[in-house]
């Protein structure tokens, strides 16, 4: 049966094509990523005779994973270009298949590449030269840097930029960053207004002035019966920003891909 919506066979072909088409870029990136820990070690040894600290290496790994993860949609910079985009849009595969492959590349392959090559190279140096370097940055990253809120925020940013990359045709990066700032500003204003309205209606009367809302230990849907109004509000906001908004961006991106004209 000729399935025009989704076929794993075509997804596999698309995935393979993406890597074949960009093999040089991937190779260059992996070499640079794998070489960075060696460079750090050399610089540290030559300049201060000290070793790069585990905290620095872990932070750097987290920063690189974050940047690559969030900005990976620009890997598909030309998808909606009126001329250059034809090679993608006219390729015999469904929009859903193309969308899934693009999401997989951005959400899985791009951060995985950093973790494997940057984290792997760091781990290899530690394993081979324990005298010069202490601890594994990748283990420290997974144990201390990977928080639920961090992942949700990165997911929101990725989907927002994925959408922006398909929405804007020219000067994408500039326009994306500008709209990102404007939308953040607007969301902050809206939140402030909602808090003010809630406050004026007495929702926060029972809330202590110096209480803190600890959400890091909670899952996104962990509501408790005794939660005060502020906690409930922050939790709801968290679900909206971390789950609802990214899903809306995903639906918007898919719709743009499906209806884009060239």
């Amino acid at each position: 049966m000729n399935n025009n919506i989704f076929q794993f066979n075509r997804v596999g072909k698309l995935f393979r094509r993406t890597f074949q088409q960009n093999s040089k870029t991937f190779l260059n990136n992996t070499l640079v990523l794998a070489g960075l820990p060696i460079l750090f070690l050399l610089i540290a040894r030559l300049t201060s005779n000290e070793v790069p600290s585990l905290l620095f290496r872990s932070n750097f790994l987290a920063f690189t994973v974050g940047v690559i993860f969030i900005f990976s949609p620009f890997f598909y910079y030309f998808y909606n270009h009126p001329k250059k985009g034809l090679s993608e849009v006219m390729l015999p595969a469904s929009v859903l298949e193309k969308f899934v492959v693009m999401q997989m590349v951005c959400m899985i392959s791009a951060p995985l590449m950093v973790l494997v090559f940057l984290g792997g190279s760091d781990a290899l140096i530690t394993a081979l030269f324990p005298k010069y370097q202490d601890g594994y940055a990748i283990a420290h990253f997974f144990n201390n840097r990977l928080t639920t809120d961090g992942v949700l925020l990165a997911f929101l940013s990725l989907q927002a930029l994925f959408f922006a990359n398909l929405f804007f045709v020219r000067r994408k990066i500039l326009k994306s960053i500008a709209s990102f700032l404007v939308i953040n500003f607007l969301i902050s204003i809206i939140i402030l207004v909602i808090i003010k309205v809630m406050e004026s209606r007495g929702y926060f009367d029972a809330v202590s002035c110096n209480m803190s809302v600890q959400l890091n230990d909670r899952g996104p849907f962990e509501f408790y019966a005794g939660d005060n109004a502020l906690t409930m509000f922050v939790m709801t906001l968290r679900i909206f920003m971390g789950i609802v908004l990214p899903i809306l961006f995903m639906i918007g991106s898919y719709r743009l891909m499906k209806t884009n004209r060239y």
Partner: protein
Amino acid sequence: MITINNLSFKYGKKEVLNDISMKLEAGKIYGLLGENGVGKTTLLKIISGLQKPWKGSCSVFGEDPFKRTPSFLSRIFYLPEELEFIQNDCSIRYFAKINAPFYPKFNKEKFETILKEFEVEGDKKLNKLSYGQVKKAALSFAIATNAELLLLDEPSNGLDIPSKTLFRRIIVQYVSDNTCTLISTHQVRDLENLIDPIIILDNKAVLMNASLEKISEKLHFGLYSSVPSNALYWEPAPGGYICVMENDDLGESKVNIEALFNTTMHHKSRIKELLA
């Protein structure tokens, strides 16, 4: 194969195509002629699913092209005039290697043969080739896909004179017999002896969609020492005047596409009436 019914298209407020209808069949090489800006490229884009009609319908293989389903996309190949989509940092052989798996009827031997005939170096990077060479490389890939519908926008642009001759021969020799080929051009001489039927698009309308046989049945083309009084159109040529007249028992003549085009532009309603 292609059915267009009362199709209209606008870019913003500017109307490009207005209420056009036509049918295109398999196994023919259509020439889509028209002046610059009459909507030839837009029509090709609508047929290939890159644009959506504003009004009316376009159906290709019984499908709405704008849905861009994999089965539809694997049966067509659209080669635009500008080839930025193919000018990557890879060779045409590599381009074919990574894209051919999506075209079930792709023929590698045919691809290699056409590349050889066009004298294109298959291992040279596409972004290092001249425009004409890239065009030949892209044409080789397009024909080798064995697509049932081949849409070529100004394919002879950028080709030198020997390559234009070669292009005509390659199209005739290698395009499958059941393929419908639609070639858009404003350089009619480049496609002489290749295209049949001929579609002439005017501002917002189809002026003609007729076979050469029908055209020569209705119009007579000849070289005369002086211009006959019943000539619809004439132009000076070495040895006299190329004249186009209504064919009232003047016999069959070879259709001069350029003269036909100019005649149509000068006598739109009469030609439309004659060839309806």
